[in-house]
């Protein structure tokens, strides 16, 4: 068989059309929001947290989080004076209905630690996804494409902070979206909206007027598990060294 000049002339445009079809993308559908102008994160002010569980309830309501699973939860730490490295941590039902009274009031210290997805800039969870169903958006939020997710749970294992779970009904990975549907409309997250003491604050690191910049300059702020180089973006003020 020989390819004639005529056949070649048919084949080349066909290939060109196929190529164009592949490369064409859909236009962005968010008119008043430019992703490149934001870099979202959150500040948790430990000395302000009273362990009321408002954030957990608000998150569940806003995002229809199934019972027994949490996109955010609150832990209560008890650190005894002689044993700093072995804190006792409780989080009954994620702290949703508050906490029981403390047992040993005079021994050691107690404090609350709210947790959520750290929206890591170099997140281990997105790196292990075999199908490209989870990713860091250009504005710094780690999301799950639930139409693409297979539910293999590699990401659930990969997250060093335990922030992901397999949704029991949808059977795909689920996690905190940093209320992406709210922050792209100029609102704050449900947990921040419901927090009565301002212990949680949504932060936009690309906004030069965000008070976070002054806060970070003047406070001793930590992230969780910095040794894992995840680029975690949830900043904790006043975090005790015993917190994992």
């Amino acid at each position, binding site marked *: *068989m020989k390819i004639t000049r005529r056949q070649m002339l048919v084949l080349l445009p066909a290939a060109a059309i196929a190529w164009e079809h*592949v490369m064409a993308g859909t236009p962005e559908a*968010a008119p008043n929001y430019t992703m490149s102008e934001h870099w979202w994160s959150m500040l948790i002010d430990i000395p302000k947290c*009273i*362990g*009321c569980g408002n954030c957990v309830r608000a998150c569940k309501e806003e995002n229809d989080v199934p019972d027994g699973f949490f996109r955010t939860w609150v832990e209560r730490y*008890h650190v005894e004076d002689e044993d700093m490295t072995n804190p006792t941590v409780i989080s009954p039902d994620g702290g949703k209905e508050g906490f029981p009274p403390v047992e040993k*009031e005079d021994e050691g210290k107690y404090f609350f630690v709210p947790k959520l997805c750290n929206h890591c800039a170099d997140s281990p969870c997105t790196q292990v996804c075999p199908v490209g169903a989870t*990713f860091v958006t250009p504005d710094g939020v780690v999301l799950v494409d639930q139409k693409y997710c297979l539910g293999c749970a590699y990401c659930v294992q990969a997250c060093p902070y335990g922030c992901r779970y397999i949704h029991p009904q949808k059977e795909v990975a689920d996690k905190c979206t940093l209320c992406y*549907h709210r922050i792209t409309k100029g609102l704050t997250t449900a947990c921040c909206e419901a927090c009565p003491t301002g212990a949680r604050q949504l932060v936009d690191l690309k906004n030069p007027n965000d008070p976070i910049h002054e806060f970070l300059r003047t406070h001793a702020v930590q992230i969780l598990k910095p040794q894992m180089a995840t680029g975690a973006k949830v900043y904790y003020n006043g975090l005790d060294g015993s917190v994992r």
Partner: protein
Amino acid sequence: MGVFKDAGHLFRFLAIFVFLFIAFWVIRGFVVPKSFGKYGHYRAASIDEIAAHPLHFAGHEACETCHVDVANVKKDGKHAHVNCEACHGALQKHAEDPASLTPTKPDTATLCVRCHEYSAARPKNFPQVHAAEHSTGLPCETCHQPHSPAMTSGGAK
């Protein structure tokens, strides 16, 4: 043209290769979503899908556009920084169409103690009471107006 003499099998091989290459790209064009790869190795359209999720919390700015009276009481009180929906619950439906949903008044017997019942784990500077001793069973709003809870007669701040 003597060069291509007896080279027909090479052209047949090439034709198969070209056909498979085109078939691959055509099938890929149909199978791979249009927005895949726009920002990275994922479907960019899923960002918009997630951004389109429905709201449940309206946000305190929405509340304050109508409830100016409450906002004015609240802004000078101890609860100035407590957002409306922290106590009243998610009310986006009410904000969209006030007639469609009338919020129920929170029960202070369970609401106030959620934050203000004494616990050694709470920050020491946060106002806390042993509710049973503090109120002797009276509802909190007997003495404290929830939107501005300091006692008017110069009592507890």
